[in-house]
C-alpha cells in the first residue's frame, strides 16, 4: 500500500506540474499582453505593471517565470479577474463549493441508480428487462444535456411546480459562507429559518443533480452490467453454485461485492465526463458554480479567470480520480501491485 500511495503521489505531482504548465502557457497563448493575462491587472499603469512584472520574474528565463507563477499560485494569488477586478482565488472559493456539492450529489445519484439497474440487467441477461435497461441507457447518454435541462424545468418547475428552476437556494435566506458547501453551512448557521432553508436548498438541488446524473448513470448501468456478467461467468461463482449455495446467496455474498469493485475502478474516469455535464447544467439552472462562472468568463474574455478556473476544475477532477483509485485499491488488493495505466 505504501508503494501504491507513493506512486499515486508521484502521479499527482506530475499532473499538477503539467496542469500549472498548461495554465502558465495559456497566458502566452491568449491574445493581449502576457503579464496582464496572468495578473489580470487591466487598469494598472506602466509603473505598476513593472512592479508586477518583477514579482512574476519577467526579466528571467521562461523557467524562472514559471516558478514565479507557481509560487504566486501556491500563496493563493491567482491574479485578478479582468472583468470584475476581484481576486480569482476569492471567486473560486465562492464558486467551487457549489460545483463540488452538485457533482458529488450527482455522482451518488448516478451510482445509486445506475449500478443496481446494471446488476439487474446482467442477472436477467437477454430478457425484456435487459433490453429495456439497455435502451434507456442508450437514450440517456445520447440526449443533449442542455435540452434535457430545459425539458425538466418545463415539466417539473413550471407545469408541476414541484422544484425550483434556478439557483442554489432562495435569496430570502441569509446563509453565512463558512465552508461554502451550502448544505453544511445551513446546518452550521443559527438562522431561525434553518430547517426551511435546508429544505429549500435540497429542493433546489434535485433537478440539476438529476440532470447531471442521467448520462453517467447510464454508463454505470453498462459498467455494472458487464462487471456482473463477468463475475457470474467466473469459476468461483460456479464453484459456489456447485457447493449448493442458492442463487440469492451467491449474488448477495459474492457477486455484488466483486462486481462493485470493478465498477468503482471506472468511477474516476467517469467523473471528468460528469463535471463536463455539470458545467452546462450550471448554465441552464443558473447554479452559482465554477462551470457557469468559467463560461461567463469566456463571454467577458476574462483570461485570468479562464486560467484559474481550468486549473482548479481539472485539479478537482484529478483529486476525485485519485481518491477513487485509493478506494479501489482498498477494496481490491491485486490492484495495489499494478503499475499505473495497465
Amino acid at each position: 500500500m505504501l508503494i501504491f500511495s507513493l506512486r499515486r503521489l508521484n502521479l499527482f505531482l506530475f499532473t499538477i506540474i503539467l496542469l500549472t504548465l498548461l495554465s502558465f502557457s495559456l497566458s502566452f497563448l491568449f491574445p493581449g499582453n502576457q503579464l496582464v493575462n496572468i495578473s489580470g491587472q487591466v487598469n494598472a499603469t506602466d509603473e505598476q505593471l513593472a512592479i508586477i512584472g518583477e514579482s512574476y520574474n519577467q526579466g528571467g528565463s521562461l523557467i524562472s517565470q514559471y516558478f514565479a507563477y507557481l509560487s504566486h499560485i501556491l500563496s493563493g494569488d491567482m491574479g485578478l479577474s479582468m472583468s470584475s477586478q476581484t481576486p480569482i482565488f476569492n471567486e473560486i472559493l465562492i464558486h467551487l463549493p457549489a460545483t463540488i456539492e452538485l457533482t458529488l450529489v450527482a455522482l451518488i445519484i448516478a451510482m445509486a441508480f445506475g449500478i443496481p439497474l446494471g446488476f439487474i440487467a446482467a442477472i436477467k441477461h437477454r430478457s425484456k428487462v435487459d433490453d429495456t435497461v439497455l435502451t434507456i441507457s442508450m437514450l440517456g447518454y445520447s440526449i443533449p444535456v442542455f435540452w434535457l435541462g430545459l425539458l425538466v424545468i418545463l415539466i417539473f418547475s413550471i407545469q408541476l411546480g414541484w422544484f425550483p428552476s434556478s439557483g442554489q437556494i432562495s435569496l430570502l435566506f441569509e446563509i453565512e459562507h463558512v465552508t461554502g458547501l451550502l448544505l453544511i453551512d445551513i446546518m452550521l448557521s443559527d438562522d431561525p429559518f434553518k430547517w426551511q432553508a435546508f429544505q429549500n436548498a435540497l429542493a433546489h438541488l434535485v433537478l440539476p443533480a438529476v440532470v447531471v446524473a442521467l448520462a453517467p448513470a447510464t454508463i454505470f448501468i453498462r459498467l455494472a452490467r458487464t462487471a456482473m456478467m463477468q463475475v457470474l461467468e467466473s469459476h468461483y461463482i460456479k464453484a459456489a453454485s456447485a457447493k449448493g449455495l442458492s442463487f440469492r446467496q451467491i449474488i448477495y455474498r459474492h457477486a455484488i461485492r466483486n462486481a462493485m469493485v470493478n465498477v468503482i475502478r471506472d468511477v474516476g474516469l467517469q467523473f471528468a465526463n460528469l463535471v463536463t455535464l455539470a458545467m452546462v447544467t450550471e448554465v441552464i439552472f443558473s447554479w452559482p458554480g465554477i462551470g457557469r462562472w468559467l463560461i461567463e468568463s469566456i463571454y467577458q474574455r476574462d483570461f485570468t479567470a479562464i486560467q484559474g478556473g481550468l486549473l482548479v476544475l481539472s485539479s478537482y477532477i484529478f483529486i476525485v480520480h485519485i481518491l477513487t483509485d485509493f478506494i479501489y485499491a482498498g477494496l481490491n488488493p491485486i490492484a495495489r501491485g499494478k503499475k499505473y495505466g495497465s
Partner: protein
Amino acid sequence: MGVFLSIQEQTTVRTLFALLSFLSLYGCGYDENISLNNKSIVYCSEGVPEGFNPQTVTSGVTIDVTSNQLYNRLITYDKDETTIIPALAKSWHVTKDGKKVTFYLRRDVNFHQTNYFTPTRTLNSDDVIFSFERILNSEHPYYISAGGKFPFFQSVEFGKLINNIERINDYTVRFNLNQADSTILANLASDFAIILSKEYADTLAQYNFHTNIDSSPIGTGPFKLKSYRAGSYIKYVPHESYWGNKSTIEQLIFDITPNSYTRLTKLLAKECDIISYPIAHEKIDQRPDLTLDEKTSFNIGYLGFNTQKPPFNNKVVRKAIAHAINKQAILETVYFSQAENASTIIPKTSWAYDSTIQTPEYSIEQAKKLLAQAGFEGGFEMDLWAMPVQRPYNPDARTMAKLIQADLAKVNIKVNIIRDYEWSKFLGLLAEGRHQSVLLGWSADHPDPDNFFTPLLSCASALTGNNRTFWCNGEFDNILANALLINDIAQRKRYYKEALSILADEMPLIPIAHSKRYQARKKIVKGEILNAFGGIDFTNVSKN
C-alpha cells in the same frame, strides 16, 4: 431466482417511491411554505448596476436599483408625471427673473443606519450643498473620487447653469443661476439629482475611503442596503426611520438575471415576484396568477453612428443606411408591434413633437443611389454594437442587429455584430468611441423635450462620451441653448422644430422606435412600480 429478483425489484421500487414522496413532501409548493416569503419581494432585474449612486451614471439598470429606493431628491414628480411636488424640500420659490431658486427643507429626514455607518444628525443644508458641490467643483475630493464623471449633469451643462449654491440657514438653500433656464426644476426632480449625506462623506474622508460613497450607499430613501453580491443579488431592508410612508415589506431583493428566458422561467416557476422586461407576453397572459404591467414611457431606440469614424463621417452614407433599413419589420419582429415607429427622437406625446418631419422611406434603390453617390457602390464592412441587455426602447438588440444585418447585406454592406460585452463594460467602451455604429436608446429623465436633445446629441455630451454619435454641430447647439432661455412653449416649439430638421438632414442617428416599458408580476403583489421617466419605485409595493 424469480423470487429473489422480485424482492430485489420490489425493494428498488419501494426505495424509489420513498425517495420521491420524501422529495415531493416539500416539493409541493417549495416556496409558498416559507414564512419569509410573505414579507419579501423578489424583483428579478435584467442587469448589473454600475454602482449605487445615480449621480455618476446614466444606465437605467443603476437608476432602477438606486434612485427611488435608496435616495430622495429635493423635489419629485407627482403621479400624473407632469407636476412637480415636494420631497426633501417641503416648498420652494423661484424669483421672477428665474435666476434664484430657494428650497426650504424638511426637518425630520433621517439617513440610513447600517453596519458601516451610523448617522448622528438629520438632513440639513450642508448635505444638499455637498451633494451638488461634488458635481460642480472639479477640485472637490469627491469629484475626483468619481473620476469627474457625472454624465447626466455634464450633458445638461449643469456647471454652466449654476453660479453657486448658497446656504441661507440650516434648512434653507438657494441655487443662484447664471441665466434663466426653463429646465432647472425638471433637472432637480430627475432621478439623478439625489441627496447624499455629508456626515458620511466626512467620515469616509478620514479613512481615505472616498470611493465608498458611490459603492456603499447611505441615503434618505425608503430602503437601505443590507448586502450585495456583485453580479448576483442585492438585498435591501426598509429604512426604519424613513420620513415618508414606510414600506410594509421586510426585504426587497434584486435577483440579477440578465437572461430574459431565465427571468421568465423564474416568474413562471414562482421564484420571482416581479420581473423586468418580460418576453412572451402571451404566455404571461395565459396564467391566471400573473399580470402584465405596461407604462408608456418617454424614450427612443435608435441606431447611432460614430460620426468620427469613416465611412459614417459622411452624412450621405448615414442617410443611405436609413433608407436601407426596413423599420416596419423591426417593429413587428423585435417590438411585436407594441411600439410606434419613430420618425424623430421626440415621441408623439411630447409637445415638441413635429409631424411634418417624416421617417426616410424604405427603399433599396434610394439607398444604393446614395451609396454610389458617396463612392461606396461596392459596399463596405462595418461593426454594429448591439446592447447586451433589454431596455424598454430596445427589448432585443441582438435580433434587431440580425435584421439590420440582413437588410444591409442587400446593399452590399457586411455587418459584424458585436454583443459579447457585459453591460457596464459595453457602455464604457462606447464612451471611448470604440464602436462604428451602435443600437442603443434613451429613456427621458423628465418630460422636458430638452432631455432628448441635449444629453443625446449636444457637443457637451459628445465630450463626455454620452453622445454616442460624437456628432457636434454648432448651429444645433445654439438652437438648444436659445430654447432653454425662454419659458413660452410655442416659442420653444419653433426652436425644437428647427433642431429636428437639422437632425433629419444630418442623420447622426436613425430613430427606430418609441416603446412601452413592460414588467410582469404575481397578482398578489400590489402597488405601482413603473414610472414614466427613468426608474422604478418600490415605496408603495406590498404583498398580501
